[in-house]
């Protein structure tokens, strides 16, 4: 049975789909990052999450600083164009607010782990990692031999998040989801996951085809929540611009535990229902 996606509120979706201890992927490649959903996870106080993402950025810094994460599976953790993720660094360098276990890959490895997950395969192969120190630190990288040529390649296991959350431009009345612009690894991340939540700018009667679109049929998505601006300070092409000042300002807030805690209490937790 192809169940259509359920349209619900962000709070209900996070409450029902994201549980303590889950493996959670919030994907987005600079564009369409599901910030509002990440903030809702913080508000609902989820703990012991394994956070998965190719490019953990500010929203993961915020989740890590708020103590939601026990583990991070990733390939590049920085503030793009600005510098470090200071909450991420504080967790790794000083176990604050709690220890953060790392599983570290390259982009190519992570992308292929999602591809394997979306494909129902237990692993993927790539030309990667050779000569680097990553396989020594990441047991999830193993050699595999080509049965035809004898060449040795790298194998990585499928990623299958308990829940993947993405932000998209819109959905139609049936729950079919449409996104365009830089769509990164979001299709694979949704298809690899057991459950999925898509926050959208709006729901429209019917989807007008758009060049470069990726469409996820309603039966491939678990839940949809309408969250206009749900990618802020990231952006949704055709709806909003990237708030570069927020990324720059985050550097100062996140460098200091007290400044971060003030941001968390005053900006994120206090205004219930608002975006941080």
């Amino acid at each position: 049975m192809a169940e259509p996606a359920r349209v619900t509120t962000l709070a209900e979706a996070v409450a029902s789909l994201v549980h303590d201890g889950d493996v959670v992927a919030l994907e987005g490649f600079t564009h369409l990052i599901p910030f509002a959903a990440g903030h809702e996870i913080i508000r609902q106080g989820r703990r012991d999450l394994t956070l998965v993402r190719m490019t953990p950025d500010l929203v993961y810094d915020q989740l890590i600083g708020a103590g939601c994460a026990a583990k991070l599976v990733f390939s590049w953790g920085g503030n793009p164009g600005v510098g470090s993720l200071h909450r991420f660094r504080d967790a790794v360098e000083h176990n604050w607010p709690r220890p953060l276990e790392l599983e570290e890959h390259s982009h190519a490895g992570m992308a292929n782990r999602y591809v394997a997950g979306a494909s129902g395969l237990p692993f993927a192969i790539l030309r990667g990692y050779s000569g680097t120190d990553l396989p020594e630190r990441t047991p999830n990288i193993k050699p595999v031999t080509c049965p035809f040529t004898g060449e040795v390649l790298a194998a990585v296991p499928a990623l299958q998040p308990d829940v993947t959350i993405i932000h998209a431009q819109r959905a139609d009345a049936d729950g079919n989801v449409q996104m365009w612009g830089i769509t990164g690894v979001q299709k694979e991340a949704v298809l690899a996951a057991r459950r999925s939540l898509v926050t959208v700018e709006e729901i429209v009667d019917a989807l007008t085809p758009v060049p470069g679109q990726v469409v996820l049929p309603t039966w491939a998505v678990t839940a949809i929540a309408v969250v206009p601006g749900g990618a802020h300070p990231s952006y949704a092409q055709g709806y909003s611009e990237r708030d570069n000042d927020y990324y720059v300002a985050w550097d100062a807030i996140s460098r200091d535990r007290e400044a971060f805690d003030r941001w968390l209490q005053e900006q994120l937790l206090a205004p219930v229902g608002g975006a941080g």
Partner: protein
Amino acid sequence: MSASVQPPTLAQEWSADEMMTIAAARQLHAGDTCFVGIGLPSTAANLARATHAQGLVLIYESGCIGAKPTRLPLSIGDGVLADTADAVVSVPEVFNYWLQPGRIDIGFLGAAQLDRFANINTTVIGDTYDRPRVRLPGAGGAPEIAASCGEVVVIVRQTKRTFVETLDFVTSVGFGTGAGDRERLGLRGSGPRMVITDLGILQPDPQTCELTLTHLHPGKAVDDVREATGWPLAVSASLSTTEPPTDHELATLRSLEATKSGTDS
């Protein structure tokens, strides 16, 4: 894109970063395909497009192939990259169909640490991986860019902390342990062609693959470079001086920088 030409007096002075960026841009040619990381590599690649290499094909790991940004992107996922690209593909596709098979001529990489064989660390600084002194962003696309591009250009500011005897972590392979090691590891690109710093240019020795100082930027001395290098520096017998920035290069770079809407790390 045509840069607004600045008065020549401005071009008489330049910063070390400007010299480095301009020297890097000169390494790119009109017909090249170039895999661009964010930061200095992106600035240099866009400078090349705006000066001598209009036909340079820029490929960003966000999936933008043939991006022709009219302003400097702040991130590898800026909307201007998708809007101006010949094709926007998924992230798995850019790595699997475009980078991995060796379709990209030049990979442009930065580094937090670099050793004499141009191996790169962007993972951790400090003795222990589990509790590092500095946790860096990590690998990103670099290991496979370093492995699969036809050749690699590294652009990095040169200091003793950066140019080290031994990397704390090997994130991306240059020449590994030396001549022949790339072949042994099955890496199919030919590896780093040059390392461009704020002091000069280093190139691998044709026999040993050890980085050798081949160019000094104007006003820099060999001792400046030695003091900024954590191993006994090899210096080329035919050491030469980098051509200083032209007025056009400098004016174009400055006008490009002015289009960037944020800061750069």
